């Protein structure tokens, strides 16, 4: 095994090339929050059960707490910070506000990223597909109904 723990990880982050010297055994979540200061991605359960840390890896939703940073080498990572563009929030975010799908807000970045992954793959989902897409994201306050409505409504507007 290579004893030199740190290595240069090169990947695409939110559309821009990124190179960072990091231990590939650290989680992608740690790299994003603690090395890159991207605090939008939340650290929740730390074991893949709550979905608060959801980011997109090659356009697919993953729990960044479960992804060893080495896995992002040469790949594409997208975080919640990439969604608002030019000072304007993304339609998914807009609809979350509109439909009352945000209460404490802790699950919201993960929920929004799961919704974002869904709409990238399937721009016109039905309610069941929305439920499957957010089934790995826990919300303990606003409830799922509003979240489902927000995602369906965003799909219509996009």
């Amino acid at each position, binding site marked *: 095994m290579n004893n030199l723990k740190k290595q240069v990880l090169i990947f695409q982050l939110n559309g821009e090339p990124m190179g960072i010297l990091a231990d590939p055994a650290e989680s992608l979540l740690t790299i994003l929050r603690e090395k890159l200061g991207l605090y939008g991605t939340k650290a929740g359960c730390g074991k893949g059960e709550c979905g608060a840390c959801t980011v997109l890896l090659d356009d697919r939703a*993953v729990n960044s707490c*479960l992804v060893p940073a080495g896995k992002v080498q040469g790949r594409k990572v997208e975080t919640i910070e990439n969604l608002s563009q030019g000072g304007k929030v993304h339609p998914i975010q807009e609809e979350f506000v509109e439909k009352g799908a945000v209460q404490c807000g802790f699950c919201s970045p993960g929920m929004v990223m799961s919704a974002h992954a869904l709409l990238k793959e399937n721009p016109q989902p039905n309610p069941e597909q929305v439920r499957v897409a957010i089934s790995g994201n826990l919300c303990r306050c606003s409830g799922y109904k509003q979240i489902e409505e927000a995602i369906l409504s965003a799909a219509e507007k996009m």
Partner: protein
Amino acid sequence: MSYLIASNLDEVISSLRDGSGKARVVAGATDLYLQDLPYGLVDLSALPETTVIEEKDGFVKLGAAVTHTAAASSPLVLSRARALAEGCETIGSLQIRNIGTIGGNVVNAAPAADAAVALIGLGAEAVIIDIEGNRRQESVENLYWAYNRSVVDSTREVMLSLQFKPCLGGEGSAFTRFAARRALALPMVNASARVKLENGLVKEARLVAAPVNPAPTRLLKTEELIIGRSINEETISMVEKAAAEEVEVRDSLLRCSARYRLHLVGVLVSRALKTAADRALDPGKAGE
């Protein structure tokens, strides 16, 4: 813990050799990564051959690092081995299915691993190579050593791929499961079936239930009982009874009571058989 993304098989093998028992192979790493073990992890999922899904030489072949999402959405798996698609689409959550792999599901050796239950129902074999370069093929049903322990020693062996015969004319497969929730929930019971019909009668059958032992378990007596029969209401209720009689289970705080689990074994095994038989009779239904 150290983490190495291997770029080819030689690198995987040499890292395991250098690690002399302290380095282990991972693919998705969703199970092992969190345990923070004093091991080096050697990730093989970047090897192109480990993510291939193809039909070749009379087999459906899947690389060990095919993700659950990839298996569940593959047109080949959907049409030739619907049970595997059904098993994979229920594992964990979408986020986990996007990273977790079928090879990892088998080597992690959980008693009711959904992909493993489906693969055993399909009669899958694993292709394994060790650090001396010896290749072997072993049936997935023989890869369970003990509770949560695989025969595959991932400090010196690498599962490269899984393969099974496709379900073609007259054959069908299905997977069923029951859990407290529809996502992120361990199954109370899961089951899979593969059946071959000839003139409407069962010629070959494989029925699997879990967790009724440390390993997903073939219901050999029930399988034998249905040979030569047609899949009608009488057969289904016979299977429901026979399957529950063939297993022994205990109360589990994690799953459910023994009584309920026995009931579920009967219901789920017979349901899997019925669906597999419907698909065998009408290949147009294979993807449903």
